[in-house]
């Protein structure tokens, strides 16, 4: 009998634990003092606009200031639910998605209470606006320490944005026994889909892993007539062609400047890789100038890229350490005939140097109407530049020397303050802008999304995590975030087999 009783107690305890772990719906504090300020939640989700399919926007109050947090979410149709456990608010996925579906095109009201030294404080409520346009379901990125030269474990991962599921696409240890290690980088997809994709592997067993209609191969893109193998890629939207830059990239370190690291090219050109014929042709290889970051227009008729402006005569023979801060890039484009693979004449699209700036990482919206890029004072590797911001310009008229430079849209809601914002991109429906930003602490880059509609941008929000504290505990940067409409289905193991051949 005793045994049955103890078993019953254990079962009961287990059931209680199980139930309590499912969802925590605390009651709203009764005795509170009101505060007129918005809650100091992290991440800051106050008055953001989010897609209706995004994962729960879990958040927390600062643990060193508050002991508990309770949040009440109210949908536009009056449904209410409270959440909170400790200082964290973690919303079950099913409940969250039900609320989002009920609030599509409307808002969810969020009221937050924080307990400090036994007293509850009631903050000003805020709203989360639910857009009618979804975000692409998947996102891939490289997770890497924001380190300098040394790297250890590195992975390219994919995240389901509607949930918190993260899986690995590839890592740099699975095929590497060599003490020199292996660097993996520059994952890229054709038209947001994953049956045509690529990433590079450097150092040990290096090459470019290309998936062509689901078939994996590893190719060496270095030719006698190129300065390097392919580096920054861009898939042609319809043909099996990839434009790459070829780069002699170097890295140096500031001894005092807050930017800390400087990445620059000593030389860079553009090449076109034809997957079908495994042939590499040169697009542009002016030895006196630097061409980098190619990107195709959505119709595939133009190739956009950045190109450096000639240095003043007196600086040309000087060491790069003296001239790096004077190198500025403008944005150009060349027409492309997909039938003949012939490029047209170069056209200046954005003259950044004329306003003493430098442009990098251009991306054109899927409807071809807008152009995003990162803009900083100099150079092209803006993720280390604290002054770097994302800029968006309309692409209404064909560029010509006579037409005035297009005015940038107001992206203050997207850009961080005094922090590097870089690597912008568009979702496949053109309604979500994504960028990598170090705005949280100046060091670790995180993924931010912002709603975009008719040239207007809403307040950016940080990619949600199941545990909001993970934004702090993850000592890795999100590098090169890329939208995908479907997951990469090839396993790490399958990718690794291409190295055995």
């Amino acid at each position, binding site marked *: 009998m005793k045994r049955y009783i103890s078993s019953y107690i254990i079962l009961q305890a287990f059931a209680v634990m199980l139930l309590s772990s499912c969802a925590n719906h605390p009651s709203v504090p009764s005795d509170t003092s009101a505060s007129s300020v918005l809650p100091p939640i992290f991440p800051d989700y106050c008055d953001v606009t989010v897609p209706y399919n995004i994962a729960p926007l879990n958040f927390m109050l600062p643990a060193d200031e508050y002991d508990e947090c309770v949040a009440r979410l109210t949908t536009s149709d009056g449904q209410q639910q409270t959440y909170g456990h400790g200082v964290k608010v973690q919303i079950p996925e099913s409940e969250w998605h039900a609320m989002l579906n009920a609030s599509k095109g409307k808002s969810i009201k969020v009221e937050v209470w924080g307990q400090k030294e036994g007293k509850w404080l009631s903050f000003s409520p805020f709203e989360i606006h639910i857009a009618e346009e979804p975000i692409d379901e998947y996102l891939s990125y490289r997770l890497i320490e924001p380190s300098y030269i040394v790297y250890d474990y590195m992975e390219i991962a994919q995240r389901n944005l509607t949930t918190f599921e993260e899986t690995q696409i590839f890592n740099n*240890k699975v095929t590497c026994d060599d003490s020199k290690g292996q660097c993996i980088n520059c994952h890229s997809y054709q038209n947001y889909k994953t049956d045509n994709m690529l990433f590079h592997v450097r150092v040990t067993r290096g090459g470019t892993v290309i998936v062509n209609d689901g078939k994996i191969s590893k190719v060496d893109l270095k030719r006698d007539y190129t300065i390097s193998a392919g580096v920054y890629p861009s898939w042609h939207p319809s043909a099996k062609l990839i434009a790459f830059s070829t780069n002699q990239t170097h890295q140096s370190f500031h001894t005092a400047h807050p930017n800390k690291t400087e990445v620059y090219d000593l030389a860079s050109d553009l090449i076109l890789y034809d997957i079908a014929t495994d042939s590499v042709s040169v697009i542009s290889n002016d030895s006196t100038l630097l061409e980098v970051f190619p990107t195709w227009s959505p119709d595939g008729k133009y190739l956009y890229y950045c190109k450096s402006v000639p240095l003043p005569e007196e600086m040309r023979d000087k060491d790069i350490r003296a001239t790096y801060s004077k190198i500025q890039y403008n944005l150009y484009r060349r027409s492309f005939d997909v039938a003949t693979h012939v490029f047209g004449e170069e056209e200046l699209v954005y003259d950044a140097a004329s306003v003493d700036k430098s442009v990098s990482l251009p991306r054109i919206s899927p409807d071809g109407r807008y152009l995003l890029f990162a803009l900083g004072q100099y150079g092209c590797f803006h993720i280390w530049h604290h002054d770097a911001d994302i800029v968006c310009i309309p692409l209404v008229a064909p560029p010509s020397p006579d037409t005035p430079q297009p005015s940038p849209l107001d992206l203050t809601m997207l850009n961080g303050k005094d922090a590097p914002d870089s690597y912008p991109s568009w979702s496949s429906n053109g309604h979500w802008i994504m960028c990598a930003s170090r705005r949280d602490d100046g060091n670790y880059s995180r993924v931010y999304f912002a709603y975009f509609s008719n040239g207007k941008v809403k307040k950016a929000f940080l990619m949600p995590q199941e545990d909001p*504290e993970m934004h702090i505990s993850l000592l890795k940067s999100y590098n090169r975030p890329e939208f995908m409409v479907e997951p990469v289905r090839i396993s790490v193991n399958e990718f690794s087999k291409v190295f055995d051949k």
Partner: protein
Amino acid sequence: MTLKNKVSKALLSLSLLAFILFVVYILYINREVFYTAHDRSEFLFGAPFFHTLLSKPFGLMRYVGAWLTQLFCHPALGSGVLVIFWALIFFVGVKAFRLKGSASALMLLPIACLLTSVVDLGYWVYISTIRGYWFSQSVGYLVMLLLLWMARQTPRKWHLVWYLLAFCIYPVLGWFALLFVLCLVVTEKLTWRELIGIVLLVFTANIWHTQLYSNQNFSDVVLAGLPRFATTIDSTERLSIPFWVLGAVSLLVSCRLTDWGIGRLVDWSFGRLVLPIVCTVAGVVFTCSFMFRDQNYIDEMRMVRYAEDDNWKEVLRIAEVNKKPTHTMVFLKNVALMNEGGLLDRSFKSGNIGFPITNPESLHVTLLEIASPLVYYNYGMINEAIRLSFELATHYGFSPFYLKVLSRCALAKGEEKLEERYTTILHHHPFYGNCLRLPLSRLGHSCQHDGSHCPIGWQPAPVTAKVNELQHSFPDELSGVENSDSYIVNNISFWYESDSKAASEQALFYSMISCDSHRFWPSLRKYLTLHEGDIFPVHAQEAYILFMDKAPEEKRVMIPVEETVYNRYIKLLDVMAKKVKPGKTFGQVAEEMRGEWGDTYWFYYFFGRQYSNTSDRNANEIQS
């Protein structure tokens, strides 16, 4: 009870007591190593670290081990927990291996192996990448023994289930799951069940690799958890020996109950008497022969610990009694003198000649791995300190040492959010947070003011005026990838352009260290300009006299020096002229002169220079 039994029991008790005392002694003399172990071991709260470890077999043990390593923040506490694990291993092992009477002393051997494994690392403590190393093996072995004990309580026909269980828990127990199978197999005569167990054992890693760990390198799956000491440039098999011996001893002890081997020795009455003594002696000899013991190794750790706390007096106290300091100790001493004052009066008195570390395996461990982020930080070279901390932490883990330095650097750079991130992570450490915080001076700074209670946990010490002054005293420039002690010397010796008093002192000092007159003269001029009215420091006088003699500038700077200093220089030249003879090496002359002149800059210049083109001339024979 017969006399023989009484003697046997007494010998067992005495042997156990002797072994316990030995363990306590070894742990005590290695307390500084254990503190460093916690300081250089990564344990991060949250899902990313947990999932990273759990993504590999033996990951759970590593996670538990990494958590327990934090206890070494108080070496006595960590050691105590380790001893409890070993005591449990002893008692469970006795049951699992069914050791009776004197034979229970056999369990001292696995414990000796585990003890050895935490005191034989030497400089690997700075570069090991094995997470949770310090506890995971003891925990894993204890779990293995518990399984063995339970398995042997069940009828033999059930053993197949245990073999299957061992296969299933390979992701948790790693190589201990295999050891468990082997130990269980050898306790019985071979039947089809044991054969299945062995076959399963052979294919365990392969099966798990294909089923669960296909995104891992196979070498990380096979014999998972068995420590392998290898970095990109260093590797050793020696440190794996205790674990191979642990496995072998466990197998042999398991065999005891069969008809082979040790069983007969134990059953032999004389054997029963001597076995405890033999086991104790074997354990002691094994541990002593593998243990890394070196005073500089310990002193360096102590200096780093005090330097982390800005306790420069203690750093100097250690430096003063150490006659053959390592390069790291020399740098830390000079940082301490910068902070305590008297750098140019005291530094060469305790010697600036750094000796190589005791390094039997020629590991690539230098100032870089031991203390360079701290040295860079204190010289105001914050960007370098950040970079080095990152480079090293990327390899060796974001341990408290690196998190503390990074936190201080972020504070110095005014990066509040970043500092918050690092301190938040540290606050989840049981001894850096606000829950188990103990009033120990070593743990932090801002909480020490009242010495007792810290409501917010560890906070970086406020940036000192010196660090602040220095970090703004040199212009920004792009540096290359070099990072070594000579990088510090060369960089700082060029700070003579600065108008900072602190920087000018350092520039003068390091221009003296570099023995370069082209840097010395401008450094001296700047120093004298900025320190007008101050007493001309003794070592600066010595350098001035020497460079006036050996490398004067065309336009000489005339400064009055003390007559005693000048006369001493004349005497030195005289003595040196007599001692330097063809056939003698510089090293021999240096040894003869060290007693009288070892406290001068001149001695360093002539015999100890380490950062100039002629730094390795001590072994060279004098030609004329």
